[in-house]
């Protein structure tokens, strides 16, 4: 067997091990128990929503497409469920066109149905509008200029959900869950102009980029990846997809740590030989 063939076979063995480490905990999910934890940055968001009085308005910008759905949907569902449980009025929007169809509408209608909330009264879904930063700037001046109609073409001015709201300055909280640049846009345009408390949710890949904004208090809290969604599910005591996913994730993490150690040992042995 040549060196290249050995490398290919080793690669397949690693893929196989990772596949097993994923599938076995998924199938035997109920037999695995993990401790409940929550980090301060995630709890900050929970505490803020918890502190809001009933009927307060919040805005949620859902800016991801199906390719990040597995990672971010549980996060939005947990946040939305919490907001509905607290009887907050929620405005859903997106500055990412790929999120406009299935993702935004599907998540809102699914959670609203479960929480028995009414469209136009307890929540509203805005249609996609191009111009991301321009839209957020408009929201900081006049929400009805940016969104005269909701996604069903109903006039937003007439909706009870918008009562007492003129711009995002009247919102008690804004949350952007994104798989792209939307969080940056919300920090630069939304937070600077709207001055409302801003929380961010993002994919794990992007999470470290936003920690500096926590230190400067431009972000109230940060939810990075599926782990943060699982923590939020624990906080609201509604364990779901994210909590279940932590089990295979823990097993694969352990496997990767072992593989990294083995890889390093082999590297050092080979270096000594040469």
């Amino acid at each position, binding site marked *: 067997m040549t060196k290249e063939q050995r490398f290919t076979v080793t690669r397949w063995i690693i893929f196989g091990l990772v596949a097993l480490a994923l599938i076995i905990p998924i199938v035997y999910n109920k037999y695995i128990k993990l401790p409940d934890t929550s980090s301060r940055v995630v709890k900050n968001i929970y505490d803020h929503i918890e502190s809001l009085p009933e009927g307060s308005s919040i805005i949620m910008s859902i800016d991801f497409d199906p390719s990040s759905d597995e990672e971010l949907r549980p996060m939005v569902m947990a946040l939305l469920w919490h907001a509905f449980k607290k009887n907050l009025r929620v405005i859903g929007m997106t500055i990412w066109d790929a999120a406009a169809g299935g993702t935004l509408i599907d998540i809102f209608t699914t959670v609203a149905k479960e929480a028995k909330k009414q469209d136009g009264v307890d929540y509203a879904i805005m249609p996609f509008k191009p111009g991301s930063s321009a839209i957020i700037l408009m929201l900081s001046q006049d929400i009805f200029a940016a969104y005269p109609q909701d996604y069903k073409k109903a006039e937003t001015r007439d909706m009870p959900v918008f009562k007492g709201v003129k711009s995002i300055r009247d919102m008690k909280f804004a949350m952007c869950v994104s798989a792209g640049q939307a969080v940056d846009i919300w920090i*630069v*345009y939304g937070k600077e102009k709207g001055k409302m408390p801003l929380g961010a949710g993002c994919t794990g890949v992007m999470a470290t980029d936003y920690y500096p904004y926590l230190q400067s208090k431009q972000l109230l809290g940060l939810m990075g990846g599926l782990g943060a969604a699982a923590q939020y599910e624990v906080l609201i005591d509604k364990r779901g997809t994210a909590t279940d996913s932590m089990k*295979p*994730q823990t097993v694969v993490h352990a496997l990767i740590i072992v593989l990294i150690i083995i890889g390093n040992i082999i590297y050092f042995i080979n270096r000594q030989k040469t």
Partner: protein
Amino acid sequence: MTVTPMQILEAWLAVGFTLMIYSFLYKDNPLFKLGEYMYVGLTAGWGVCSAWFNVVWPDLIEPLSRVFKSYLGATLDKPLSHNENLLLLIPLILGILMLTRFSPKLGWLSRYTFAFILGTASGIAIPLTVSANLFKQMEPTLKPLFGKDISAWMTVNTLLILIGVVSVLIYFFFSLEHKGIIKKVARIGIFYMMVSFGAAFGYTVMARESLAIGRMTKLVKWAGQDYYYASIILLVVIAGLIALLEMLSKKSKPADDSTG
């Protein structure tokens, strides 16, 4: 739980394409390419339709047609809103100018649109970006180290940030040769960056696993009786097809090799 025929069809399609894409883990093959091209094609097609039905038609064509109808004296189902006026002709013209990129002779006209976009975007972005990403970010490094409401941990935190910012900036300071004290401080900067890269790598692993877990969970669910064992059947079919294609390519290889 009752599964509708549409859900079963969706599951079979999703399983098929997921396995086609995952087949790349074995090696590049025609089934992976088929899945990849379908994904790119569908995304592009969906993007065009989304732009037309969510933006161009409701925000430009429809309001403009209502404006013209009103000027021609036709009866409208509801009065014109403040957004519906002839100013909409400006984005229409700018949009049409963008399409002149397709013509080598008229392509220069698109520069007007680009100039407009760059001008407005820069005007809006520069002051706010400087404020949010520079001044606000400098604040944590300028916090007092000691004071009435400042705990020991907060002092340590501020010091860590201050040392990190200064040392990383010095690492990227190329006007001075990295020797002596500069070298030592730059080394601290490297240490900070390594910690940052490590955290980013850890998060990236978690993110990729999350996507794989999501897919695997669905594949396990679709392997059940409700979905007519979609995952199991399609896994066998796709593995069989790849093996067949492999055999066919191996048969044709000796002839190719003989020429080389």
